C-alpha cells in the first residue's frame, strides 16, 4: 500500500503545474483549465487525507469542491464566450478593460 506522502507529492506536482499554467498562459481557456487542475489537486489532497485518517469528511469536502468547480467552470466559460462575442478574442492580454 502506498503511503500518504506519495499522494501528497502527486498532488503538489499537479498543483504546481496548474499554477505554472495560470502564470504563463495567455488564453483564457487555458487559464481556466489550469485552475481546474489546481482544484483537482486539492481534491486529491482531501481524499487522500480522508482515506488515510479514516474520516469521511474529507470526501464530503471533495464533493463540495467538485460541485464548486463545476459552477466556477460554467461561469468562467460563459464569461469567456461573452467576452469573445464582445471583443473577438479570448487572449487575456487584450482583455484588460477593467484596468484603470
Amino acid at each position, binding site marked *: *500500500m502506498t503511503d500518504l506522502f506519495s499522494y501528497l507529492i502527486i498532488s503538489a506536482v*499537479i498543483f504546481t503545474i*496548474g499554477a505554472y499554467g495560470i502564470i504563463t498562459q495567455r488564453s483564457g481557456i487555458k487559464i481556466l483549465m*489550469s485552475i*481546474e*487542475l489546481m482544484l483537482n489537486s486539492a481534491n486529491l489532497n482531501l*481524499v487522500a487525507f480522508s482515506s488515510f485518517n479514516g474520516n469521511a469528511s474529507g470526501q464530503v469536502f471533495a464533493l463540495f469542491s467538485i460541485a464548486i*468547480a463545476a459552477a466556477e467552470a460554467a461561469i468562467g*466559460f460563459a464569461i469567456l464566450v461573452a467576452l469573445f462575442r464582445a471583443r473577438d478574442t479570448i487572449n487575456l492580454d487584450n482583455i484588460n478593460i477593467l484596468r484603470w
Partner: protein
Amino acid sequence: MDIVFLVLSIFTIISSIMVVGSKQLVHSAVYLAGALMGTAGLFLLLKAEFVAWAQVLVYVGAVVTLILFTIMLTRKGEEENGE
C-alpha cells in the same frame, strides 16, 4: 497495488503537463480529461468510489464538455492565439 499507483500517477502527471504544454487547445482539453480520469483512478485506489465517479461525472462529463464547447464557440480566437 504499487504498480497501479505508479502507472496512474505518471499518467496523471504527464497529462497535466500536456494540458499546459500542448499547443492545441483541444488537445489540452483532452489531456485535461485524461488528467482528471487519472485522478479519479487515484480516488478509486484510495477507496473513495463515490468521489471518484462523481469526479468522472462532473469533471469529465460536464466541465471538459463545457471547455470543449467554449473552444468551439471561440474558434477564431483560438486560431489567432494558437501560435
